């Protein structure tokens, strides 16, 4: 198969913007949810959520699922939001928006696998940020959640070619981005950032989407890129990857991203990586439950 010329790729991705199911409430909701935790205006969240009936119904179903162990069922959106917590709302919302964007026959990476990786990376980003004293753990969470937007883009815009990419990567046990580069001529980073820009996502998040596999080429001064890159690597070696194993030794301490992040967050030098890695196994359990709940009540 021949690679897709970059110009053609860009055109196809930009055309995705006009998809009818692109998330209308996404931007305003992210804006309110990103107020400081004690300042999030619950009434505004309730209002925004109510615009999208399917989201509202889903929040209620998840809040009333056994995972949250309520004794009395939540009957209002407000009650559901209190049960789930603001952070979960954001997770459910984003996965709902993106899942709706992608018709079921267009998923290349299994959606359950994709969301386990995305939520996993989000959680690891936040936890990692907290442990190394990075100033904005919630932003790190969002970066982790959205870093692979390009995988959705590639699935939508280049479905057949992308199936081939995934099959080859699985067979060789090699990183997805390497296989994309070889087969398509571009990676999910390059295609993801085009959509991210069209959606006017914050610049810091766009940078993460664009550079998380090539940290050495990234613009300086945004530690979020290296942080997400490392969290992504950790997820992929710990059963929260793309559903297959990559056969290589991952040596974080000599990774350029590690060195870069250490310059911003000196506490990185003292992190107990063995312990952090073992803690990831507990996240796998937690995230699998969350993703299974989101999908089983869909």
């Amino acid at each position, binding site marked *: 198969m021949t690679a897709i010329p970059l110009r053609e790729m860009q055109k196809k991705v930009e055309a995705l913007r006009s998809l009818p199911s692109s998330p209308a409430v996404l931007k305003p909701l992210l804006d309110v949810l990103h107020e400081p935790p004690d300042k999030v205006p619950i009434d505004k969240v309730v209002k925004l959520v109510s615009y999208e009936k399917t989201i509202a119904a889903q929040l209620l179903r998840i809040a009333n699922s056994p995972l949250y162990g309520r004794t009395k069922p939540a009957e209002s959106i407000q009650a559901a939001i209190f049960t789930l917590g603001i952070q979960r709302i954001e997770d459910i919302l984003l996965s709902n928006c993106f899942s709706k964007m992608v018709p079921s026959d267009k998923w290349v990476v299994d959606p359950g696998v994709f969301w386990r990786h995305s939520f996993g990376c989000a959680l690891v980003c936040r936890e990692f940020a907290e442990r190394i004293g990075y100033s904005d753990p919630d932003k790190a969470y969002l970066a982790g959640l959205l870093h692979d937007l390009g995988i959705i883009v590639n699935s939508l815009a280049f479905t057949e070619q992308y199936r081939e990419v995934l099959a080859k990567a699985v067979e060789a046990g090699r990183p997805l981005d390497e296989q994309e580069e070889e087969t398509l001529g571009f990676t999910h980073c390059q295609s993801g950032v085009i959509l991210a820009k069209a959606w006017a996502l914050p610049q810091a998040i766009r940078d993460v989407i664009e550079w998380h596999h090539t940290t050495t080429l990234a613009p300086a001064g945004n530690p979020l890129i290296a942080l997400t890159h490392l969290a992504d690597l950790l997820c992929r070696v710990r059963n929260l990857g793309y559903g297959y194993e990559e056969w290589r030794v991952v040596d974080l301490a*000599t990774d350029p991203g590690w*060195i870069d992040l250490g310059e911003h967050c000196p506490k990185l*030098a003292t992190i107990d990586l063995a312990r952090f890695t073992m803690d990831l196994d507990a996240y796998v359990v937690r995230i699998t439950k969350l993703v299974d709940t989101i999908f089983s009540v869909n």
Partner: protein
Amino acid sequence: MPLDTQTPSKPAVVSSRDDDARDPVYLKIRDLVYQACGIYHSEEKLYLLAGACKRRMANTKGTDPRQYLDLLSGASTRVVELRELLNEITIGETCLFRSQPQLTALQNVILPELIATRGKIGLKKLKIWSAGCSTGEEPYTLAMFLIEQSEKLLKGWTFEIQATDLNDRSVETAKAGIYGGYALRNTSDLYKRKYFGPAEGEKLRVNDEVRSRITFSRLNLNDDSKMLFMKGMDLIFCCNVLIYFDIASKRRVVQHFFSSLQAPGYFFLGHAESLYQVTDQFRLVHLPGTTTYLKGLPGSEGNPKP
């Protein structure tokens, strides 16, 4: 890449997890055990720690985990009680084919790398050390795994396994190579047929071909003069042994392991063990589903200081 072994039985599922493990006192015990021994229980493994503590409480006639924490931290009781608790924690950890992710990573990542680097210098022999081999489960697993590779990855290669333990009786048991159903719970029927013969009752005995690949001997890891003779290793395994050492001896022993390894070479610990603050020479690296410590080529040793 099937290894012809069954998937190791998973620990009890979350729903059957003991609710008592949610008692925050177990987090304190967890941290104390980690500080003192380097063995860690993440959130989803806490119920195992709680179980071990309860078995110890039953033996020490206590019921309150807070009292038990006092016992673990009391100046006159801590050394003995920690050792007892570690015994409970590691109980049942010895079986053949205990860590499937480790073997899969060896097959798919480590062996190909070693073959590439060692093959370049024309040396087609791998030296492996199972340090603290207990009753032999680990070295036999490695021997069977490597024999299985001898027609594939390791074609034209030989290997030698040194298996050592402090305890004479363990070494004797290991040499005999006789195992029952519990030790063989992760061993596939194919391997049982291929590498075992009958022994008394239901038990099986490791066959001579496998046994001939291993040299068993008694060795005290604290014996500096003897440790110096362990040289030119490609892989070292030391599972649930260092957890019994105090920090000073741990550092000395790990230093010996480091000197014993060729670079690049790998040092494997038990799956819940960590060398945090023990060494800055070995580097923790990740493999799918498992971790190992790397002795890098000269110039790439230790964690770079940011």
